[in-house]
């Protein structure tokens, strides 16, 4: 039975990997920024995920607390960072320990400017025309001047090693062996995504692109229109969201 479950987990992971978003150039570059600011071992979590605040979830049953065990698809980016695709499959330990919550670096003004190539193809600096960028198609992206992500009020959730080992052990005992990762640290913040369009873009096209971004990044809020006719903007603002995690293969040692 245990073998069958393990095999099923591996198959699930492989299935998730095959449709992984991790080869998305935008996500990979965002992961580079995460590693530069927070350290080498943090990987970007996509799509960004909601988390309940510790005050609203006193027993920490919601997703994203250190000590939980999870299934994730992990893919290496071109520069060595890890991009985790969340499968929303997780298990909490029976007594989920209260994390240490500490303020840390904000990720401000992280921005991509798009460029139109000589042949009319869309790209951004460093990307090839065939790259997918934040899941936008080239058709959409040619209307986008820049795409920026700002993450404010960043908090880091973490635990000492002994608490992590105890929590992941008790979660495995309670939920079985079909989980691949232990969550060891989480970065949470208020996310603002700003899409600046090229001048004169049709409002229907802008709304359509906004809808694509909202669906791809699993955002809930409606976009707010801003800027001017020559510099139209769509702004999504939500929080708190998990945007990066640290995870280790189980069992933790």
């Amino acid at each position, binding site marked *: 039975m245990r073998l069958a479950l393990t095999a099923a987990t591996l198959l699930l992971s492989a299935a998730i990997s095959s449709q992984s978003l991790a080869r998305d150039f935008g996500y990979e570059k965002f992961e580079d920024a995460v590693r530069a*600011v927070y*350290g080498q071992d943090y990987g970007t979590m996509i799509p960004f995920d909601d988390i309940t605040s510790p005050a609203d979830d006193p027993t920490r049953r919601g997703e994203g607390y250190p000590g939980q065990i999870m299934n994730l698809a992990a893919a290496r980016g071109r520069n060595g960072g890890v991009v985790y695709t969340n499968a929303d499959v997780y298990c909490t330990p029976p007594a989920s320990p209260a994390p*240490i919550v500490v303020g*840390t670096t904000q990720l401000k*003004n992280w921005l991509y400017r798009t460029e139109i190539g000589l042949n009319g193809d869309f790209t951004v600096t460093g990307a090839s025309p065939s790259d997918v960028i934040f899941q936008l198609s080239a058709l959409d992206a040619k209307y986008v001047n820049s795409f*920026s992500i700002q993450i404010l009020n960043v908090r880091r959730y973490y635990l000492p090693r002994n608490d992590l080992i105890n929590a992941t052990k008790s979660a495995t005992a309670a939920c079985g062996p079909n989980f691949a990762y232990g969550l060891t*640290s989480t970065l949470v913040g208020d996310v603002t995504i700003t899409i600046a369009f090229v001048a004169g873009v049709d409002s229907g096209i802008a709304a359509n692109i906004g809808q694509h971004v909202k669906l791809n990044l699993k955002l809930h809020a409606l976009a707010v229109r801003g800027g001017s006719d020559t510099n139209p903007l769509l702004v999504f603002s939500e929080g708190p969201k998990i945007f990066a995690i640290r995870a280790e293969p189980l069992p933790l040692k």
Partner: protein
Amino acid sequence: MRAANGLRLAATLLAAFAVGTGCTPVPTLRNVLAQHYAGYDQVLPASEALPNEPRYEYLPGNIAAFTLTEPRSIFAAASWSSKSDYCSINVPLSLFRPKQRNSTIVVHDFDLSLRRALGLKKAQADLQLEPNEIELLRKVEIRISSPKEYFVQKTPKPDFVQSCLAAMTGRTDIKRIRAILVGDISIKILFKENVGFLSKTALLGKLQSNFGFGFLNGTAQDMSATNVVFAARLGAVRQNTPH
């Protein structure tokens, strides 16, 4: 103490020599640490200091796993990434007796001082900027205010969880945190005239990563972090008796 003074003098002389020879260090956090807080390295992620949390990650005396991100050089401190695998001494920061250190202000005028010292290429390389991007900058000011040094003390005694130490035994990546620097940091960036909003935003995003500071609050061109652990001194751990 005499050794520390000697090191500081040597670093100052080296810096002066470097300016004279056109190798001006650029004010990244690593360079500021090397010049003004010798022996300290940058640690990531940056973290606000929690005075009353006995399980805090950056307590002096903690045993913790780190990855070396950037090695130390003559002009730059090393940079370490915390793996967030650690055993806490379980003594909150409020029970330590910190030592006041000197505040620091570093101003870099990109129009004058760097060009005069022919260090522009090095600045561009250190900050990982494109040639056209460094042309947008006029001045960078880095200020470290009221830094306090917390270091390992004999009392109160550490209260490690033994199973935590046992789990860390044998690892080659563990260090003991010997001391930390806590203070307020601010960076002011002045652009040249007629630099567009998008160019400023893009450059600021890049600078934030490459300066290596933690910004807990502030606006885009005036960034600051209050009461933040911005550096640590790490030492080896004796594997047989880690505590």
